[in-house]
């Protein structure tokens, strides 16, 4: 069971109150977590990754276990603590984003 914490506006959009729980096959990677997230919450498609390019949207960041995963390869295994559900994957809106 993977835990994902979303920013306020995406929680509202997905109609979830707290952290999202997902079933993700091993090895647990960023791509697999996002695929599972978008499958479970289709409204989030395009809000984290661009619909066309599948690239991370410019003003979003991924943090896990106090590390910045925003620029890591999407197929790299996430930390064991995330893969086992002890620590969440954090989706964070950059402080410079929005308007």
């Amino acid at each position, binding site marked *: 069971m993977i835990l994902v914490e979303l*920013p*306020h*506006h*995406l929680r*509202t*959009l*997905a*109609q979830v109150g707290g952290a999202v729980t997902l079933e993700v096959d091993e090895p647990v990677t960023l791509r697999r977590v996002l695929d599972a997230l*978008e*499958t*479970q*919450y*289709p*409204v*989030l*498609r*395009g*809000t*984290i990754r*661009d*619909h*066309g390019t599948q690239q991370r*949207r410019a*003003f*979003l960041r991924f943090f896990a276990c106090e590390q910045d995963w925003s620029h890591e390869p999407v197929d790299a295994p996430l930390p064991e603590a995330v893969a086992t559900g002890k620590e969440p994957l954090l989706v964070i*809106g*950059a402080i410079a*984003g*929005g*308007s």
Partner: protein
Amino acid sequence: MSRVRVLVGTKKGAFILTADGKRESWEVSGPFFAGWEIYHMKGSAVNPDRIYASQTSGWFGQIIQRSDDGGKTWTTPGGGVQKSPEGMPMGESNKFVYDTSAESGAPLTTHQWYDGTQHPWEFKRVWHLEPSLTDAEAVYAGVEDAALFQSKDGGHSWQELPGLRGHGTGPQWQPGAGGMCLHTIVLDPKDPERIYIAISAAGAFRTDDGGKTWKPINKGLRSPFIPDQDAEVGHCVHHIAMSPRRPGVLFMQKHWDVMRSDDAGDSWREVSGNLPTDFGFAIDVHAHEPETIYVAPITSDSLHYPMDGKLQVWRSRTGGHEWEAMTDGLPQKDCYVNVLRDAMAVDALDDCGVYFGTTGGQVYVSPDGGDHWKPIVRDLPAVLSVEVQTIS
């Protein structure tokens, strides 16, 4: 008795203002989609309870929302919570991808960047939603970077009409201050194949075959910010309005200049007349008097606020040239707001109501065609768009 429903898009959410036909006592609901930019909302002429909304964010991109009960509740078409991957396409209502397919698309060329160099096309947001006049499931979307999309399934999925972006002049289009946006879509009520659109800063375009082919309709426009002031494209058209009672007669608020066309855009002539400044964004036409038009003059392209701190709507009852200031009830000192291009609308009641919103968060109504004004609300977030539904 008829009533009105005013759909207000703001920088931080959507609001719906309702009143009976007297337009004196108002109910305010919202914010819907709190914290998001709502560029535009518009109801279907076929089913007034069907309302489409463009919800967008610098962080999270584009969301399309739809209401089927007059704005009480909203859904993202096809994007709701769905536990199983099987079934209908998921999340497609947010998907605006330019059509570059060999079968139906157009090559994704470059357009002109601010500095005159070429720049790739990149989708950013939906500026304007225009529901079909005959089918509640059909709706057009004007987007940034400029292109026209269409949904035929109530907003579940979107397909580009690539003939516009691909017709050949795209590399000459450039962004205006708000981006390179397709912000105006005007449907001809008598000819479903005819659509007008406008792009900043490319100009106006028309299709006569339902969006397959397009041609620039900018003859008569002059713009000092492009090397050839009479060029076929490159003009910063801010908005176009047309009376449904008289299709083919168009009024345009250009960057500078208020323009008029009597031949469906084939040629334009300036009708700025005695306006104190002919810079502005919003323009609209009286619901019953096709020669009565309204603009909200803004000081200049460098000073996006009313002249001398006096908020004024100017009205012409002669289709242009001769204008009069409508100020009763509007602030006449220390007012430095803007009125954006999609933030003016008219209702269809016998005594035509005129509405506009400001970047200061006010929405004003004149229930008597512009003679007298009063604020419906004063303290909303900056208003991006105003549309009015007249409901029997």
